[in-house]
């Protein structure tokens, strides 16, 4: 890495000459644009980015980013990304893949990457459907969903990506949506600044196989009631007129309308370092609750796995000196045969 000033990048510096081949109207375009706009704001050289993906529509992402990139195999992107960080923790590794890739076939690797706290930024493109294989239900599809593979309705109960992330010890958990690029950029900037696994669930519209799946969260007339923007240290208020809030009732959350003796001081105040609260907030699902947006949780204390690995290497050198190959080969009982 050269010791010269960081060049000023523009979005087009991160654009390859490859034609983007997503369906017209796909939510992936907006996410790609947001990423290309975000990277120039970071203090990272272009050559230090590595974009890693698995398989699926979203997984084509690296081909469109003019950085180092790996389009890998189905579900294993977290493991490939882990290997990149093991080799070189200086690299800024981003993982872009879909709900099928990261939560179904790759659920195991996603979980272990998060619990180890690899310093990787994860963009989960959640469209609640299998797009590339043409319309089967995904692990985030709602119960009873009728698709090509479930004509009588899916019998799978969906996984909640945020709860999974919180449950496996992920140190940065957030949610955003494809159509709100400003919001997405802000969340990505915060994720990029985080040391450790930064997991962003992005609601993404598959306009071919699951169009309008997140309409409630994106449309002007519904989103104020269907979502709630989290701000650290602020009470949980939402609604078109900010007339509603979330408060505790015993150990459970409930939606309340402000007024009639209920004031802001009765509401839950968001503490993004509170692991237990994060789990409860992640549970809020439409239509019973507004769904959270923004940064749900962050643990700034835990060191990333890759950093610890390299610390151990240094400790080993401190304790034993830089490995002496000759001495290593001569370890243990040896004997001399003279000619």
């Amino acid at each position, binding site marked *: 890495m050269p010791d010269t000033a960081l060049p000023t990048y523009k979005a087009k510096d991160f654009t390859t000459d490859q034609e983007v081949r997503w369906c017209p109207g796909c939510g992936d375009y907006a996410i790609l644009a947001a990423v290309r706009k975000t990277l120039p704001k970071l203090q990272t050289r272009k050559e*230090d980015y590595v974009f890693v993906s698995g398989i699926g529509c979203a997984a084509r992402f690296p081909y469109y980013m003019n950085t180092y990139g790996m389009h890998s195999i189905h579900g294993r992107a977290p493991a490939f990304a882990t290997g990149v960080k093991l080799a070189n923790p200086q690299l800024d590794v981003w993982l872009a893949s879909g709900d099928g890739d990261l939560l179904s076939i790759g659920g195991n690797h996603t979980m272990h990457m998060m619990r180890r706290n690899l310093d990787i930024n994860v963009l989960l493109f959640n469209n609640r459907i299998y797009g590339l294989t043409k319309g089967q239900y995904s692990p985030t599809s709602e119960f009873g969903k009728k698709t090509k593979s479930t004509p009588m309705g899916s019998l799978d109960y969906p996984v909640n990506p945020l709860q999974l992330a919180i449950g496996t010890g992920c140190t940065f958990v957030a949610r955003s949506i494809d159509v709100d690029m400003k919001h997405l950029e802000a969340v990505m900037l915060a994720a990029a600044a985080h040391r450790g696994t930064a997991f962003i669930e992005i609601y993404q519209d598959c306009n071919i196989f699951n169009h309008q799946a997140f309409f409630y969260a994106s449309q002007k007339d519904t989103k104020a009631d269907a979502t709630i923007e989290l701000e650290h240290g602020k009470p949980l208020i939402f609604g078109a007129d900010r007339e509603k809030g979330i408060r505790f009732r015993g150990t459970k959350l409930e939606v309340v309308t402000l007024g009639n003796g209920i004031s802001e001081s009765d509401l839950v105040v968001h503490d993004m370092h509170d692991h237990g609260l994060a789990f409860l907030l992640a549970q809020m699902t439409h239509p019973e609750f507004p769904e959270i947006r923004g940064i749900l949780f962050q643990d700034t204390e835990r060191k990333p796995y890759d950093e610890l690995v390299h610390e151990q290497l240094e400790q080993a050198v401190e304790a034993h000196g830089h490995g002496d190959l000759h001495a290593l080969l001569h370890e243990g009982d040896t004997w001399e*045969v003279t000619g």
Partner: protein
Amino acid sequence: MPPEAPASGGASIEPTVREQMVVRFCGDSGDGMQLTGGQFTTSSALFGNDIATFPDFPAEIRAPRGTTFGVSGFQVQFASTEIYTPGDMVNAMVAMNPAALKTNLEDVEPGGIVIVNEDEFTKVNLRKCGYDEGYNPLEDDEFLTRYRVFPIPMSRLTRESLTDSGMGAKDVDRCRNMYALGIVSWLFGRSLDPTIDFLNDYFGTQKKKPEIADLNISALKSGYFFGETAELFPVRYEVAPAPQNPGRYRRISGNEATVLGFVTAARKAKKNLVYASYPITPASDLIHGLSRLKHFGVKTFQAEDEIAAVSAAIGAAFAGDFALTGTSGPGLALKSEAVGLAVMYELPMVIIDVQRAGPATGMPTKTEQADLLQAMYGRTSESPVIIVAPAGPADCFDVAVQAFRLAVHAMCPVIFLSDGYIANGAEPWLIPDVEAIPPIEVTHPDVTNNEGGPYLPYVRDPDTLARPWPIPGTPGLEHRVGGLEKQEGTGNVSYDPDNHDHMCRTRAEKVQRAAALIPPLTVRGPESGELLVLGWGGTYGSITTAGDELRKQGLPVATAHLRHLNPFPSNLRAVLDRYETIVIPEINFGQLRTLIRDRFLIDVVGINEMKGRMFRVEELVTKCRAILKERSGQAAAGRKRHA
């Protein structure tokens, strides 16, 4: 180094000189037989014998005491001549309980020494291991006349010798193995010093329990003195040091040599090594060994599964480290999709498969060499990789270095096929001069090959057909690798039919061209003639010994051994053509035979078995003799017909 007997005396028995001896220690899996055998081996190696060992243990960590499936054994052959196997028949066996005797006796030569701990031959124990009610081999005249049996009350004698120690019964009873080792050390005139040093270091220094070290040392010495004073044994044996090439030696197992070889490979390339794996028998010792070498720049990663392990290794290769993953057969099956991706990426890495008996879970602690075709073809589509296989424990070192040399040369994954027999077996190793090992040249480009346009990651070296290895962090060389077919040169996604055909052929050709780095195959014995016995992997020792024996019997038999299975050495065809009959013994149903027949359209005779163990030399000798006889009979009949 002469044996340092702890005391004089016992010399009244004139030792019988033997060229080699095979000794087996067996007992319950909690009896410490591996340690006992290992220590006896070290003493023999330090004495200057050539040695070869064969540890044989159950998959159960602590099977119920006294049962036959909980028996653990350790066999060692030590010799005053060069040897290549742990030996067929056992000359002297120590059995710590009836179950060990029952399961191991058939391997003892008639008239062989059988030392048993007679205290364990109780009614309960005899019943537990399935002897007929009321039967006790120690009262069976047939058994007692067939072997030279020495029943010794080892449990009682160990306790008696340690009564003054003040230690608990449990600790005292654990020293029985050292008592047995003492007896055997006396029988073969072996010094106790290496074991005493080991016990002091292991229990005293490492475990901080010097009292346990003292206890074991007392038991060891008591066993030795017992052998000396009890005059139980009418014999003592002497196996003189073997002539060996000058230099410094150590005893090394296959897995240990594999660890050292890969660390050396990384050092010779000035690279850090990433070893990603998921624990699996018999490969787990690789991560145990490598994880303590962090000061050599070795990063070990115990992944969540086999697939994550290989994937992480590939990620590390992309980022520029030496990438290694290790497993056994079932794990290789899980890794196969990712290995195919590494073929597609054209990145260097090594996948170790320490083969074990399969299919499925099979017999995890038993050996087999039946993953060759999996390594060769066990991936989707046309997905060629380089395949190497060490011939024995010490050879793992050289082949490991060679594996990375080939991987980097061809920018291609390499599969390293070890096996349980090689991995756990041990032999003396002439420690190489690290300075004399040539460096592994690795080049990462730092300037673009396409000024004014995007970097071209799939432009090839015209000779090797290898692509460059640009690594992240290098400005101007940003590029993407992927599992989708790539356009030659640019690496962009391509569905062009001609390009796909070209790329598939190029990846195959690239592997074949790696033969440039492979030394020619050499033969042992006649350079041409009637019979060539060709082997690969762990059969080297048995085949070599059998070949030597057949030639001693006056038969025109040559042997040769392949360390490279893909590509083959360039002269293989020429070598095969020099012999009338080719025989390939394999611990599978003829996998190399299939490859050779397919490649060269020649007939090959197989000697095949799947018993979870290595060939016995005697078996190979007998079968080769039969093949020779049959062939000469056919030839004679043929001549008659044509006459």
